[in-house]
C-alpha cells in the first residue's frame, strides 16, 4: 500500500491507473506523470521504487515549486560510451557543472531577447485536490458576484447549462450550490 497525498494506492493496480484516483488527475495527466518519473506503462504500484514514490509525492505536494527536468543528452548513432569506472554521482556532478556554465552564457544573451515562451507541459500548471476545489469554488463565487445567469442558477440549485427543468433536474437540485466544494 503506497500513500500519496493521503490517498491509498492499492498495490496490485497499474501505477498509471492508480494515479487517476487523485482528484484532478485523469488518464492523460497520469501518463505524463509516469513519463516524468520514468514509470513504464505496465508498472504496478508495488513495483515502484522508494525513490519514485517519494519523488511523485513531493512533486504532487507542490507542483509549482518542482525543479524543471533537464534535457539529458541522447546517444548519437556511433556513440561509444566510456568504460564504467566513474560512478553515477560523479558523472551527474560533471553534467550539472557543464550545464550551469552553459546557462550563465545563455542568461546573458536572453536578457536582451523577448520573454520566455510558455511551456506546453501541463505538469507545470498542475492543480489537484484542495487547490482545484478552491479554484472551482472561486469560479462559482465570481459568477455570482458579477450577477450572471450562471451564478443565479447555481444559487437556485438549478441546471446551469440550459438543460430542461420541467422534468429531470435531480442532480442539479441535489448538487448545484454556491459552496459546492
Amino acid at each position, binding site marked *: 500500500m503506497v500513500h500519496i497525498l493521503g490517498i491509498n494506492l492499492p498495490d496490485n493496480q497499474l501505477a498509471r491507473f492508480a494515479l487517476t484516483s487523485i482528484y484532478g488527475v485523469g488518464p492523460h495527466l497520469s*501518463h505524463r506523470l509516469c513519463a516524468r*518519473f520514468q514509470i513504464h506503462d*505496465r508498472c504496478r504500484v508495488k513495483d515502484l521504487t522508494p525513490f519514485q514514490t517519494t519523488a511523485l509525492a513531493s512533486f504532487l505536494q507542490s507542483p509549482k515549486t518542482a525543479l524543471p527536468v533537464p534535457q539529458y543528452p541522447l*546517444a548519437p548513432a556511433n556513440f561509444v560510451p566510456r568504460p564504467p569506472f566513474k560512478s553515477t554521482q560523479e558523472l551527474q556532478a560533471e553534467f550539472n557543472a557543464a550545464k550551469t556554465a552553459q546557462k550563465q552564457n545563455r542568461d546573458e544573451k536572453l536578457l536582451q531577447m523577448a520573454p520566455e515562451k510558455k511551456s506546453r507541459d501541463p505538469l507545470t500548471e498542475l492543480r489537484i485536490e484542495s487547490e482545484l476545489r478552491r479554484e472551482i469554488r472561486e469560479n462559482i463565487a465570481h459568477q455570482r458576484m458579477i450577477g450572471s445567469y450562471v451564478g443565479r442558477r447555481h444559487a437556485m440549485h438549478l441546471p446551469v447549462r440550459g438543460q430542461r427543468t420541467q422534468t429531470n433536474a435531480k442532480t442539479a437540485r441535489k448538487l448545484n450550490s454556491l459552496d459546492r466544494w
Partner: protein
Amino acid sequence: MALASSRPSFYRSLQGTLTGLPHTRGYANSPPGQQSPFKIQNVKNSGTSKNKKAFSRKNRIGAFRSMNPSQLTDPVLQPHSNLSVPSFKPELMTEDRIGQVVAFNQTPHDPIKYFGIPKNMLLEFRLLSQRCSVIRNITVFTAEELKSAASKPSHKTRYVLTGPSGCGKSFLLLQAVQFCLAEEWIVIYIPRAKTTVNSTTTHTYDLRTQTYLQPNFAQQTLRRILEVNSSNLQTLTMREGLNYDRRSFSSGTTLAQLASAGSKDPVISSVVLETLLNELSRQSKIPVLLAVDDFQAIYNQKTLYRDPHFSAIRPYHLAIPRLILEYASGKRSFPKGAILGAITAADPMFPVTTELMDELRLPGTHPRSAYNKRSKILQEYAQGLMNLPVPEEFSPREAASVFENWMRDNALTAPANDEVFLAKYTESAGNPKAFVWQGILGTLEGAAPIVSENTPWPQLREGRM
C-alpha cells in the same frame, strides 16, 4: 367448497413424495464456509440489494469448475497418442530428409524452456504431445548458411526471415537456434523483441551510455543466456577486469561467473550484459548466434516509452534494442557467428517500416516512393541486412508429414484419408499456419455415419443408429 377443502390434503400428500426425493442438485451450492451468492443479504437497503461481494472472484461459481488433472481417471480422457518422432539432430539437415518431422526434446539446457518462444508456437506445442516441427527445404538452406557462417564474422551473415503471415518464420528461427546449439555455438535468442519496446519493462536514464537502460530485461536475458550456454561460457574468460558499483571482476573470471553475478542483481545487470557481449565480440573460439523474433519492432521510429518531457523514446536510445540494432547493422560484430531476425508480418502496433522494406526489397502493401518519410538513423541501422524469404506454402510432401503427425496425435476428427488431406491443403493454399489451425484443427468434418446394408432404405436411415 368441497374442492377447497380437498386441496390442502392433496398438497399434504404430495409433500410426502417430494420430501422423499434426495436433494441431488448440489452444484449450485456455494463452497463450504462462504455465503450463498444468490441469497439477498441486506433486506434493509432501499432500492436494489447489491451484494457486491457476491460477484467477487472468491464467491463466483460460474457454470462449472475445472477439475484437477489427477481426477481425470476416465479412459476417454487418458492420452492415447502413439507419437514417436525422432529427435532433432544437425545431421538430419540434408536434402533427403526434407519432409521429415523432428521433435525438440527436453534437455537440461532447453532453449524453449529458458528463452521462451513466440505465443503462437507456444499454443501449438501445448496441443501436441511432443514439440515437433517439419524439415523444409528452407531449413536445409539455412543450416548450410549457418555452417558456413561458423567461420566468418557475424557482420557477413545477417539474415532477416520474411514472408506473409503464417508461413513459418518463427519456426524456422527456432530450428536455427536448435541447430546452432547442437553445433556447440553460443546462442542468444530473444523470442519476443516487442517486449523491449512496448513499455513493459523498467527503464532508467544512464548518463554514461546516454541511453535508457533496461535493468530487469538485462537481468532476465543474462539468466537465460547462462542457463542455456553454461558449458560454453565456462570455457571462456574475461580479458580485462571490471570494476563497477563496488563489485569487481578480475581478468580471469569465467563468463559464466560474470553472467551469474549479473543475473542476480538488476543494479549491475546492464553493465554486465554489455561487458559479456564485448567479451564475446573479442573471442574467436566459439561462434555466436543472435536470433531475434519480432525483428521489425525495433525498427519502428517511436517506441511506446516516453521520456520525462513526454516525447517518444527512439529504439536506438533504449539499451537492449540498441544492442540488437548495432549487431544487426554490423557496427558491432562477433568474430565468428551470425545474426538472424524474423519479422512478424501481422502486428499492427509494430508494422514493418519503410526503411526495412527498402533494405530487404519487400513489396509491402502500399506503393513507396522517394517522398515517403524515412529515418536516416534507422536506414543506417538497416544497412547490409539480407532477405531470406521463407516459402509461403508447404510442399505436398511437407504438408503430408505434418498431416500424418497430427493424425498420429489424434487431432483429427475427420477420417484420415487423401480426400481430407487434399481438401485441407487446397483450402489453406498450403499456408502452414492455416493448414494446421484452420485445416486440421478447425475442420468440422466428422466420421462418416455407418449404416448396415441390411436395413431397408439405408439412405433414409443415415445418421440414425
